[in-house]
């Protein structure tokens, strides 16, 4: 095996992605069961946000692994530059946009419904949204950093708005948004910086994210 694959960061990345994958699947299946019983719209979008997160984390993992492989094999490097990375970056953009859609709908579906019925009916039509997102994913991929910035702004705005409006403590809502914050940092690191330089930051982020995932799972599993 090539020494690059023996680097701790590669194994930590792999273990972290596997952990996130398993916990997300568990959370999704529980929420899916609750949605099957209630058909509550907020639950549908919330559960799907975890699926899009898995999708995103898997692409991030593949991109990080490619970066390692590229350092080993220059032929692979040329191949990924031409075909692979472009496709993967498009998929990453699509996963971010899909996540944004489910994330926003989970918390705001009712506000949109009250505000504008026509707009709401368009938004809840997943086929139209998927088509729009796939086209946007291809068109906006060169501007992926802008989408990540959008994601961060949206979530910060959402937290601000909810906190301002709500009269109760929203601990789990904040915990969920912390997860989004870490996800955004992960994306920024992947797109704008070199991955292998920030071992300590990665470790801290992975530990925090795993704790958050376990906490959400504990809340959902009861």
């Amino acid at each position, binding site marked *: 095996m090539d020494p690059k694959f023996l680097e701790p960061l590669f194994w930590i990345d792999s273990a972290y992605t596997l952990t996130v994958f398993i916990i997300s699947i568990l959370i999704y299946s529980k929420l899916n069961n*609750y949605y099957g*019983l*209630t058909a509550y719209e907020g639950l549908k979008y*919330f559960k799907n946000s975890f699926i899009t997160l898995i999708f995103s984390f898997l692409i991030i993992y593949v991109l990080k692994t490619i970066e390692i492989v590229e350092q080993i094999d220059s032929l692979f490097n040329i191949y990924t530059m031409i075909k692979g990375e472009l496709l993967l970056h498009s998929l990453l953009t699509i996963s971010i946009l899909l996540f944004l859609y489910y994330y926003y709908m*989970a918390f705001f579906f*009712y506000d949109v419904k009250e505000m504008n019925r026509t707009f709401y009916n368009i938004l809840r039509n997943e086929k139209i949204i998927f088509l729009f997102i796939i086209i946007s994913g291809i068109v906006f991929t060169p501007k992926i950093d802008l989408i990540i910035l959008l994601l961060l702004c949206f979530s910060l705005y959402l937290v601000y708005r909810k906190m301002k409006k709500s009269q109760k403590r*929203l601990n789990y*809502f904040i915990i969920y948004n912390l997860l989004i914050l870490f996800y955004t940092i992960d994306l920024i690191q992947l797109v704008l910086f070199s991955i292998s330089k920030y071992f300590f930051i990665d470790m801290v982020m992975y530990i925090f994210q795993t704790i958050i995932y376990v906490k959400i799972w504990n*809340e959902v599993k009861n």
Partner: protein
Amino acid sequence: MIKKRERLEIIYDILVLINNNHNQMKPTPLLRKSNLSSSQFDKYILELLEKDFIEFSTVDSKNYYSLTKKGFEYISKYKVILKIIDDFDL
């Protein structure tokens, strides 16, 4: 927020009414005790029958509604589900 999950509460109330009546309740007292209009009641009963939460049976030429396994599951998980909706503000 209450309006947002109103549907879930009405369904829970109907199921609990049936359950508290030894899992067998006639349509007329169920309508009366549910505090719903006749049209609303019909809409919810139809949904509950379609989703297999309740079943309709006739005993000695009298009509009854009773809970199915899924109906009991809804009652048992209702509070957990409501807590998730509240905690995450969905």
